[in-house]
């Protein structure tokens, strides 16, 4: 299989990034050190090439209605200029992908999807397109995407763009960078303030070079994974997959049962959740995906969906899927690491509080 390369590949090679296959792409996993890159985003500013992600556009009278019908969250009642996170479900409630819907302007909606799910999502949306008066176009090959993340993001980005007001988190505007049209959303996957900038390959390569000259730290996918886990965000293929529903990943808040219709509604309003996703922190040991979660009797009650060493806490952290029937009343958890049970504390809040607005 030939791996795809983003249009920034040469830039990554110049920076001597460690490049690994990810979701069918050759992607930079690390430039200097995962720790340094995580700290840059939490305390200063870092930039990720996430051009492998997919961009779909819905245009026409029913663009908003079609998006609202496809996803579980409420698109119709959100104002223009707003970004909305949502699962995309099948009729039986299982999750095809998790994505962000951007309400750009009346009759114009962009959807950003996970790289590994572009074809699956697009085929699914096409199969449900009938009856909606709007176009559905997969523009993924025409867009590059940077995620500029960290407390200094606004200060770095605003002077480079034609216009960028200090708007709220999860807002989106269409503006320009060096006379090229770009879509700028105040979104990200780190819990910090930050922006995702969608534009032509030429515009984004130029922006990347500009950010490098401004000493913004280039960050790889390994840092991105630590950052999202520290704030408890799900990742498709780990906390979510084709067999799970939004409830299995603590995403019940994204299922808006009051909407008159959306794909998966009947199943999701009637189906009881099978699993719950919990956050566990360890004083000793590092939890990894697939490790068993045990109760106080050391019986298996679930599995680690994602685990890593938190750079900020300097402790092992995990998002773990627990079978609801087996969830322990005493809230005592252990994780089986190489046949040894390590005690894990349940935490209700994110492991790390991001600084986003």
């Amino acid at each position, binding site marked *: 299989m030939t791996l795809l390369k983003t249009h920034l590949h040469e830039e990554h090679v110049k920076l001597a990034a460690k490049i690994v296959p990810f979701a069918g792409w050759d992607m930079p996993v690390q430039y200097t050190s995962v720790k340094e890159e995580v700290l840059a985003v939490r305390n200063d500013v870092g930039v990720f090439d996430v051009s492998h992600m997919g961009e779909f556009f819905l245009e026409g009278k029913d663009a908003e209605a079609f998006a609202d019908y496809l996803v579980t969250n409420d698109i119709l009642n959100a104002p223009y200029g707003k970004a909305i996170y949502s699962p995309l479900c099948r009729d039986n409630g299982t999750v095809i992908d998790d994505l962000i819907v951007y309400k750009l302007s009346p009759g114009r909606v962009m959807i950003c999807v996970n790289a590994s799910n572009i074809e699956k999502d697009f085929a699914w949306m096409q199969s449900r397109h009938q009856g909606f008066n709007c176009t559905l176009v997969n523009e993924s090959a025409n867009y590059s995407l940077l995620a500029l993340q960290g407390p200094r993001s606004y200060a770095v980005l605003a002077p480079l763009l034609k216009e960028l007001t200090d708007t709220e988190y999860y807002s989106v505007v269409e503006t320009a960078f060096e006379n090229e049209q770009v879509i700028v959303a105040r979104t990200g996957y780190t819990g910090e303030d930050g922006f995702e900038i969608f534009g032509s390959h030429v515009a984004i390569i130029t922006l990347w070079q500009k950010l490098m000259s401004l000493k913004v730290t280039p960050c790889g996918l390994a840092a991105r994974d630590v950052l999202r886990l520290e704030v408890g965000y799900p990742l498709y293929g780990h906390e979510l997959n084709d067999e799970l529903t939004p409830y299995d990943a603590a995403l019940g808040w994204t299922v808006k049962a009051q909407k008159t219709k959306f794909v998966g509604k009947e199943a999701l309003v009637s189906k009881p959740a099978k699993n719950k996703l919990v956050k566990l922190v360890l004083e000793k*040991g*590092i939890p990894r995906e697939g490790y068993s979660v045990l109760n106080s009797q050391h019986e298996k009650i679930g599995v680690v969906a994602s685990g*890593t*060493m938190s750079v900020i806490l300097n402790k092992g952290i995990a998002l773990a899927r627990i079978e609801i029937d087996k969830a322990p009343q005493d809230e005592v958890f252990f994780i089986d690491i190489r046949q040894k049970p390590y005690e894990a504390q349940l935490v209700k809040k994110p492991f790390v509080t991001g600084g986003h607005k």
Partner: protein
Amino acid sequence: MATNIPANLKYTKEHEWTLIEGDTVTVGITDFAQSALGDIVFLEVPDVGSELKSGSTFGVVESIKSVSDLYSPVSGEVVAKNSDLEGSPERINEDAYGSWLIKVKVKDSSELNNLLTAEQYQEFCNTSH
């Protein structure tokens, strides 16, 4: 990949370095290994008195992203472990050859002949990665 491979040490294909002094072998992981792993955050090595078997796993080194087994270069008894590293395993990233993990009293000195010279290890790194 540029890497530091001291000529006075012997190596394994699992990227451990060994310093042979009489019947005692000091074991660590190579500069190549620490660089490939990235930020090392956890280390698990056996206690003094443990018996190791050549080629078997004797411990674990974890970076933020990955878990890697450590393989014993020789058979024998653990006679010392570097407890300084337990609280600060990142020192392996800073100085791979200054950060030894364990010392092993060799049971069968003929096993030492299986270890790679610096030149052979360099060749191995060049061809396998």
